[in-house]
Every structure is written in structure tokens, then in C-alpha cells.
């Protein structure tokens, strides 16, 4: 008997929670009426679990289940929103009989809902509880020895638990029940239907049929039955005829069938069907090729599935990766500051009920998305190269810079459009608290600017970024700063790599290549400034500009009453943002388009000249030199040589030539005449042969190429 005690305790616990859920259900029933209770509560666990797993896990069983879950939520929302609930508390005093209902009414009065809506929410929550309760009881029933036994024991226990309360109520309140006969009949009915028949019928059905089909048929029958009954029985006219005189006050207009409920019933049936349908097994397994060579595949969810880690471990690893390197660390810290500021702003806004503050907080949150992307790109760029990303993930930073540039353009255009709209229809401007918020925002952004300034502007000491108004100059200086030593530090705001390249080619003009080499050894580490960081920096800069603009326009409006200052400031800021973003967009898109580096054109043409003048080299073709990132240049080249030359020697010479100008990753394909003979023997395309002969005949073509490269 002693070893049974833990089991006994668990059964008691089970009984307790079971009674609580039953109580909530009954309470919901009194609030919503029978039809809505059936609609909301009488669902199989299978449906709810399938819905949850479709919504919250990756392998929920395909789009059909997800759709089912969304429809389920829609059905609940339809009952919640589109049902008629004109009467807020019909008679508050009558229903506040128990403590729980008192608390409940207090809550929904605070929210401002009718008790009808409260009942819907309560029933939905109870449904979720019920699912959890059922899965827990399944586990318990294994330990106890059969679900039938558990059911019996638990029912007895809950009776014992509830008995004192029932006795207490019976003794303290004066009941309006005249005799035991009146109460006996309903009691027996409830006992048999709720506790015996319900359980046994379901058990038998589950034993003889497939559980999903039981759930499906059961739900459909219940819903149609409920709709039918409420349409006939519950109708006021029918109620006159059929019900007892006593129950008339329960059947109010409130629980009558409505359009929203019918709509919800239909959706609910549909979603039950969707959620219980067996999921199709074949997902993403089909991979083939169309005649045009296009891939024919769908997303293979299972193929992409990784081993699951705990959330904590993922966070820890991510944090470690972020803090490893200075760029990502800076972005992360600034993101933290920004988020903290946003949080403070939002809470204060909610506290003081100020819409301006709240919307500004959301705006800050929106800006944080750019930071998050920059952070992710900074972390990602350090990942190891894979088969698919054979050159490594460096280019992610360039792409992120490009996206940030696009982001800023969108922001600029929106600000511009809004400013123009305000020029024509000036709105009411409330300047209260605006100044404080914008000054604080400015402070936060200034921190960001100082943090990021050191990240990528090594050589532009003199430019003050703290000045909002001078930021174009400062920005231009920052862009040119990468090559500052070649352009002599004159800070006009033309910007871009091209400027550096310009100065460079001037310097290298007519001098021997030693100079160029030295220049490169100097400029290489600086020249490759990080486009990702630049994008983030520009974003922060744009925000700072915004704050400055707000401060200026607020001051002007408050002191002089110039309402026009606001759109004018916005116009100015938008122009500023758009102008400052162009160099970044240009640079990143040139890298993404695999352009031949503009800042090395002199070196490249020199190099190619040297290659063609090597002993044994007849000519070369397809010289590909391109920016991989803005720092790293790759090259590939085909050379034709005389039959007696050693290929390896040519390769070594060419790679050393390219190495001089800082290009370390060179692939050289050395071709002799025999190669083309072999190719024709292998049945290769004749255009290769044509190319070769063509090249041999037109040696001067390389001359034209040189001039071309020079003229880049």
C-alpha cells in the first residue's frame, strides 16, 4: 500500500486538474451558450496537436496542415469578432455569484470586452489546457494500468475533492430546489452522459476505427448537430414550446445562431478536415532537369534539416562568434545600445500613453533591422568555404552593403515623398517631447558614428562626423580616405574608388613598375575597406541626420513658428541620404558585376604586356580579372605558347607577374598547338580552333586590347 502512494498522489493531481478544466468549461458554457462551446471546445487532441506542430515546428506536415491551422485560428477569430455581442454584461449582479466569475468579470471589464468574447477566449485557453491534460493523462494511464482504470479512479477522486465544496454551498446558500426528485433526474443524466457514455463510446470508436477518422467524423457530426439544434431548439419560438418554463432566462437573444457563427462552423469543419488528412509523404524528393537545363525541384525540408541544438547553446555559440572579431563586436554593441534605447522609449511611451513615442520606438526597431543584417553578414563572412561557396563567404559583406544601400535609397525616397506631401498639405505638428527624444536619439547615433568611424576610416582624421550638416564632406572624405595617401588628402566629396584609382594612375604614369608595386603594398590593406561596415555606417549616419533635422525643425517651429521648416529639413535629409548612398551602391555593384578593378588598370595593362612579352608566349586570350571583394582580386587567363616552351615555367612566371600587383589567386591555362589538335580529336567545338587561328593571325589584336585596358 505504501508503494502505491506516489501513484495515488498523481491520480489526485490528475483529478484536481481534470476538475479545474471541467469547471472552466462549464463556466465558458454559461458565458457562450452551448453552440459556441461545442464549436470551440469539442475538438480532438489530434487536431490541436497537428495545428500546433504545423504552426510552430518546421516539419509540421506540409502546407496543407499549415493552412488548416490558419483556418482554425480564423474560425476562432470569426467567433470572437463577427458574432453579435451588443450587450456588455447583461446583468452583472446575477452572474457574480462565485469568486472565479468575479475575477473573470473584473478582468474582461478592464480589457473592455463583453462577457461573450471573454468566454470565447476562456474556452480557447481551456481547450489548450485540455490537450496538455490529455497527453499527461495518457502517460499516467500507462503507469496506473489502463486508461479505464485511471478514468474511474480520477472520477472518484474528483468527486471526493469537490464534495466538501458542494456540501458547503448546499449548507450555506438557500437553494431554490424544492425536492430531491427535481435534482435527481438531471444528475443521473449528467452522470451517465458526461462520465460514462462519452468515455465508453469514444473508447469503442477509437478501438474499431482509425483515430483520425473518429476525430473527423465526431467533430463534423457534433458541429452539424449543434447547428441544427440551435437553429431549431434554441429559436425563441421553439423555446416557448419545448423548454421548461424555468430555463427561459438562460436562453437569451445572445446565444442565438448568427452569421459569424455559421461562417466559423464552416471554416472549422474545413480546417478539421485539413488537419486530420494524412500528409503526403513525397516532399522535395523530386529532382530532375527540364530540357532547358532548369532544375525541377521543390524545397526539400528534410534534406536541409540539421541536428537540433538547444536554444541556449545556439545563443552561446552565436555570441562567441559575434564577439570574436572587432567589426561584428562593434555592430553588436551598438545594436544593444539601440535596442535598449528603443525599449526605454517604448515602455515610456506606453506608460505615458504617447503615440508619438511609441511610433518612434517602432521606427527605431525598424532601423535595427539593418544593423541585424550587417551583424549577420559580418559573422557569415567568416564562415569556412564550402562546396557551394567555393571562394568562401567574403562576398556576403559586399552583398550586405548593396542591400543596405538599397534600403537607404528606399528610406530616402520615402522621406522625400512624405516631405513633398507635407509641403502641399502641412499637418499639425505636436512638438511636445519631440526635442528630448530626438536629442537622445542623436546621442545614441553619435555613439554609433564614433564606434564605426574607427572601424573603417583610418586615414581621415580631420573630418568631423559629429556635424550633421557637414556629413557629405565627411563622408566623401571617408570614402576617399581608403586611398588618401595617393590623392594627397584633399577632401572634396567626389568619393568612390574611382577617385583613388584616378590619383593612382596619375602617380604611376610613366614610372617604372617598382613604384606601382610599392604603392600597392601600401594601399592594399586599406583599400579593401569593408562595404558591410560602410553600409551600416551610412545607415547610422542617415539616422543621425534625421535626428539633427528633427531638432532643427522643432527649434524653428517652436521659436519662430515656421511650419515649413519640417518638410524642408526632410527634403534636405532625403537628398543627403540619396547622395551619400551612391558611392556605396556603385562600388558594391561593380564588385558584384565582376568588373575589372578600376583602381588597377595601369598595373593590369602593364602586367598583360609583360605576359605577352614572355619568351615563348604567342598570345593570350580571355583575360579575366575581377574583384572578389573590394579588397581581393582574382584572375584567370589563357595563354598560347610555342610548342617547345615549358608550361610550368610560364605558369610560374605569370603568377609571379600577377603577384607583384597584389593578385595572388591566378589561374593560368597554358595552351599549345597540340592542345587544339587534341581538342578537335575529342570532337570539341570548332570555335576553339577558330579562336586559336584567329589569334595567331591577328597578333595586333592584343595591341588593341592594351589600349582598351588603358582606357578603362
Amino acid at each position, binding site marked *: 500500500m505504501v508503494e502505491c502512494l506516489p501513484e495515488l498522489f498523481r491520480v489526485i493531481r490528475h483529478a484536481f486538474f481534470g476538475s479545474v478544466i471541467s469547471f472552466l468549461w462549464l463556466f465558458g458554457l454559461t458565458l457562450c451558450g452551448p453552440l459556441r462551446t461545442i464549436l470551440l471546445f469539442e475538438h480532438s487532441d489530434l487536431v490541436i496537436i497537428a495545428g500546433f506542430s504545423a504552426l510552430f515546428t518546421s516539419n509540421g506536415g506540409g502546407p496543407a496542415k499549415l493552412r488548416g491551422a490558419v483556418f482554425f485560428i480564423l474560425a476562432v477569430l470569426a467567433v470572437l469578432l463577427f458574432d453579435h455581442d451588443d450587450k456588455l454584461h447583461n446583468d452583472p449582479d446575477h452572474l457574480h455569484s462565485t469568486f472565479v466569475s468575479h475575477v473573470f468579470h473584473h478582468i474582461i471589464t478592464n480589457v473592455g470586452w463583453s462577457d461573450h468574447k471573454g468566454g470565447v477566449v476562456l474556452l480557447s485557453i481551456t481547450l489548450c489546457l485540455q490537450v496538455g491534460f490529455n497527453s499527461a493523462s495518457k502517460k499516467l494511464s500507462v503507469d496506473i494500468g489502463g486508461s479505464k482504470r485511471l478514468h474511474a479512479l480520477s472520477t472518484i477522486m474528483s468527486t471526493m475533492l469537490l464534495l466538501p465544496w458542494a456540501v458547503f454551498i448546499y449548507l450555506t446558500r438557500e437553494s431554490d430546489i424544492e425536492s430531491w426528485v427535481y435534482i435527481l433526474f438531471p444528475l443521473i443524466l449528467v452522470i451517465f452522459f458526461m462520465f460514462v457514455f462519452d468515455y465508453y463510446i469514444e473508447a469503442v470508436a477509437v478501438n474499431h476505427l482509425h483515430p483520425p477518422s473518429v476525430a473527423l467524423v465526431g467533430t463534423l457530426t457534433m458541429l452539424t448537430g449543434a447547428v441544427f439544434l440551435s437553429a431549431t431548439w434554441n429559436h425563441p419560438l421553439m423555446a416557448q414550446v419545448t423548454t421548461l418554463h424555468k430555463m427561459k432566462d438562460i436562453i437569451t437573444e445572445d446565444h442565438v445562431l448568427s452569421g459569424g457563427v455559421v461562417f466559423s462552423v464552416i471554416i472549422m469543419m474545413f480546417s478539421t478536415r485539413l488537419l486530420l488528412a494524412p500528409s503526403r509523404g513525397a516532399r522535395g524528393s523530386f529532382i530532375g532537369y527540364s530540357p532547358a537545363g532548369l532544375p525541377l525541384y521543390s524545397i526539400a525540408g528534410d534534406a536541409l534539416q540539421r541536428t537540433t541544438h538547444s536554444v541556449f547553446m545556439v545563443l552561446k555559440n552565436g555570441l562567441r562568434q559575434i564577439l570574436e572579431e572587432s567589426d561584428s563586436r562593434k555592430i553588436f554593441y551598438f545594436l544593444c545600445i539601440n535596442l535598449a534605447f528603443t525599449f526605454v522609449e517604448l515602455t515610456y511611451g506606453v506608460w505615458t500613453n504617447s503615440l508619438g513615442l511609441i511610433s518612434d520606438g517602432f521606427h527605431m526597431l525598424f532601423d535595427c533591422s539593418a544593423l541585424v543584417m550587417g551583424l549577420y553578414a559580418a559573422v557569415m563572412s567568416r564562415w569556412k568555404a564550402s562546396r557551394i561557396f567555393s571562394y568562401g563567404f567574403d562576398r556576403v559583406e559586399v552583398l550586405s552593403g548593396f542591400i543596405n544601400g538599397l534600403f537607404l535609397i528606399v528610406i530616402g525616397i520615402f522621406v522625400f515623398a512624405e516631405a513633398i506631401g507635407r509641403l502641399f498639405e502641412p499637418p499639425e505638428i505636436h512638438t511636445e517631447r519631440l526635442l528630448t527624444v530626438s536629442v537622445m536619439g542623436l546621442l545614441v547615433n553619435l555613439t554609433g558614428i564614433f564606434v564605426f568611424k574607427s572601424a573603417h576610416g583610418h586615414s581621415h582624421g580631420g573630418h568631423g562626423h559629429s556635424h550633421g550638416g557637414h556629413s557629405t564632406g565627411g563622408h566623401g572624405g571617408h570614402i576617399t580616405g581608403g586611398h588618401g595617401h595617393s590623392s594627397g588628402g584633399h577632401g572634396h566629396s567626389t568619393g568612390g574608388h574611382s577617385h583613388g584609382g584616378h590619383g593612382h594612375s596619375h602617380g604611376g604614369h610613366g614610372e617604372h613598375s617598382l613604384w606601382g608595386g610599392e604603392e600597392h603594398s601600401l594601399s592594399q590593406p586599406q583599400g579593401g575597406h569593408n562595404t558591410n561596415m560602410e553600409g551600416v555606417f551610412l545607415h547610422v549616419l542617415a539616422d543621425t541626420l534625421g535626428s539633427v533635422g528633427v531638432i532643427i525643425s522643432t527649434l524653428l517651429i517652436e521659436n519662430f513658428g515656421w511650419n515649413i521648416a519640417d518638410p524642408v529639413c526632410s527634403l534636405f535629409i532625403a537628398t543627403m541620404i540619396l547622395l551619400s548612398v551612391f558611392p556605396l551602391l556603385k562600388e558594391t555593384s561593380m564588385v558584384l558585376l565582376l568588373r575589372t578593378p578600376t583602381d588597377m588598370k595601369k598595373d593590369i595593362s602593364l602586367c598583360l604586356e609583360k605576359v605577352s612579352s614572355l619568351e615563348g608566349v604567342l598570345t593570350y586570350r580571355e583575360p579575366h580579372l575581377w574583384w572578389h571583394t573590394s579588397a581581393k582580386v582574382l584572375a584567370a587567363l589563357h595563354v598560347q605558347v610555342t610548342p617547345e616552351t615549358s608550361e610550368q615555367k610560364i*605558369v*610560374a612566371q605569370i603568377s609571379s607577374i600577377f603577384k607583384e600587383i597584389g593578385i595572388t589567386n591566378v589561374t593560368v591555362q597554358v595552351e599549345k598547338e597540340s592542345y587544339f589538335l587534341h581538342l578537335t580529336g575529342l570532337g570539341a567545338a570548332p570555335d576553339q580552333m577558330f579562336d586559336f587561328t584567329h589569334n595567331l593571325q591577328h597578333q595586333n589584336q592584343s595591341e588593341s586590347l592594351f589600349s582598351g585596358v588603358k582606357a578603362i
Partner: protein
Amino acid sequence: MANFHSMPDLISSSVSLKVEDDRKDGTKYNTSGPIYPFAQGSKSFPSTVIKEISQILQLKEGKKIMMFLGFNTLCTVILLTWCHSTNSMALTAFTYLTIFDIFSLLTCLLSLWVQRQRPTPAYSFGYERFEVLAVFASTMLAQLGAFFIIKESIACLLQQNEVHTGRLLLGTLLACFVHLIVTFGVKNRAVNHVVEASSSSWLQEHMTDMSESLCHIVPGLSKILLPRLNPFVIIAFAGGISLFAVHILIDTKMYYSADTWVAVCIAIMTCGTLFPMTIYTGKILLQTAPSHILGQLDKVLREASTLDGVLEFRNEHFWTLSFGTLAGSLQVRVRRDADEQLVLAHVFSRLSSLVSVLTIQIFKDDWTRASTYAMVGSPAFGYQSPIPALSTRAQSPVDISLSLSSFQSPPQYKPPPASSFVGVVPPPKRSTDNTRTSTLTSAGRGTSDIAGFSSVNLS
């Protein structure tokens, strides 16, 4: 490749990038004039753009696209004014689809232009990648616009304002009409390719799923429904239907926040539709190998590795150049007695069916002992810096002197400019006949070569 002399003027090539940028945002490019200083005065930038555009406009196709573009822009402006007058967020979100259509038409123009271009020294791989960038940028811009809508909607939820339903349905119909016309009226090479090749959006997945179950009931519909539906059509209908629902809700129930919620829905749908395309083009821009090609590539490489003399492949880089074309580079390490040209031809012919722009470097270990380590040691082969390891191994003074003597050989190439790469030039061939050497001597030579190399750096 034989077309270098027939290329267009270089100014346009250097400037063409700006053409695209300007097309993307449509605002002033004149103000950003000083960004390209290398337009060295021959022609001004706007005139070049105008020239290129007028060239495209001479084509029949170009005229048609331009007509569509004008129509689309006009309708978008009308729609935007209606959005303003109805005060409806959902209609604004839907209008952004037509703005995306403007971008896709511009992409179409761009691909017309690209088709007429040849590779130039500035863009040695050709201009096809411009299309990729244009599609990426336009999908990205549309998603960012949708993102903005979500942000504005949050602000709207805080302070719900009234929506006038007067022009709501009309606007919906117009936007749907314009969108469908542009989707089906113009043969947009780049966008259509991306739509076909990118993975399905979730809207498409749901549509496929639904139509599959519908076809179980009505098998006759399988002709229409079972092929993959165009995502733009799906989003047009989904957006239209939800806007219709908004109209009903506002008219019957004065339920204004439905408008905002539907705006969020449309924005999310837009993002969901365009996101797979962004991923597809973004991966191309990141120079990645398409995963469905990897299997074929592996097969070809396995075949090629059984060729006589091939030891291994290394530094294999295969990446998508533009829609449907692959580029790649590869190093093949071969046995010392292998015929390099034969191996090259074999590997090239195997791979060229898959990879159109291909560079293969044949690599022989120790091809002449004297400079093996110069090659291996030079960062051209991707090694970091073997200097410390080698210098510890350089023990014999004899080796050093020997290699120094070989080091003094004259450079091999014809013009002797005062260049700095004397030291790395390998010694003459006379040492090649000596095929058997100990690792120690080659190590010593390696040191000496590196010494020469470092002297280059010092000079």
C-alpha cells in the same frame, strides 16, 4: 573573344552601371555626376545614356516595352493618388506590386541592352550579370517597400484612421489589371527565368497543394492547375481577393483595422513571393555553384580523374556567371611524365559541356627542382608562408651556394625593364635533366628562391 575591337565605346561600359542605378531609383543622377571622373570629357554621362536608350528604342521590342512602361507608370501614379484619397494602407501595399512591375519592365529593357553587348575589358565576363543584379535589386526593393508597409501599418494600428471605400474596388481592379497585363504582355527573359528556376514561394506551395486536392475531386482541372502557377498571378489574385474582403468588411461593419491587417498580409505575401527569387539571384551574385549542378560536376570530375596522369583536382571553383551559364577555374595536378596538353584537352572537353567559361591550370610537382619551392612557396598557390619551415631546414651551405649560382641566371623574358620580379624567375632549363634530388637540396633551393623573393620585396 575575338570581338574586342567591335566593342562599344568604353565610356558607355564604364558608365552603364550608372544607367542601372539610375533606373532603380529614378531620381536625379545629374547631381551625382562627379562620381565618375574617368568619363574623361569625351561625352557627358546623360548623353551616353540617352544614346544607349535611343538605340534600344529603335528595336520593335524596345518600343513595345517602353509603351508598357509608360502605361504602367501612368497607372501607378493614378493608383498612388487614389491610395492617398482613400487613405487605405492595403491598396498602397497592392500598388507597390505595380511599382515592382515598373522595375521588372526596366529589367526587361536592360536585358535587351545586354543582349546587344559584347564583353569588354572592363567587364570581361560580359554584361549578362547586369540582369542578375537588376532582378536582385528590383526584388529587394519591392521587399523593402513591403517592409515599410509593415512598419507603417504598425503605426496605423496604434492610431486607426478612417478608410474611404469609394475608389477601393476600382483601385484594386486597376492594379490587378495592370499587374496581369505586365506579367503576360511582356516577354521578360530575366524575370521569367528567375521565376522558373527559383524554388517555390510558400504561396505557390499552398496553391499547388490546394489544386492537387482539388484535382482529386475534379480531375478535369489538372490541365490548368497542376503545372506550377506563376507566383505573380497568385499574388495578384490573393491581394485582390483580400482587398475585396476589406471593402466588404468596411462597408458592412465599419471595421477599419481590417484594412491595416490586410496591408500587413499583402506585404508578407509580397515578401514571400519575392524572397525565393532574391535568394536565387543573390546566390548567383555571391559566386556560388548551383547545388543541382554539383552532382553532375562531381560525375564529370570523377570521370576526368581516371585519365592517365591525373593525380588530383584542387582549388575547384565553379560558379554561376549569369542565368544559365557557369564559369569556373580548376587546378589539375598531374604526374611528372604526363602530357600536359593532352590532359588539358581531355579535362577541358569533359567540363566544357557544363562550364562555359573555364580556365584549367595544369600543375606538376617538382617540374624543375630548382624552382619548385619558389612556386609552392609563392602565395600564388594559396600557401601561407613556408619561409620559417624552410629556413630551418636549410642546413647545408653547399646547397645555398649552388642555388645562388642558379639564381644568377639571366631573366627569361625579352624586354628587360627595371622590374622587380627578377628573383622569382626560375633558373634555366639546364637543371631539369637532373631528375633525382633529395628533399634536402630542393629545400635548400627553396630557401634561396625565397631569399631572392624577399629581396624583391625589399627593393
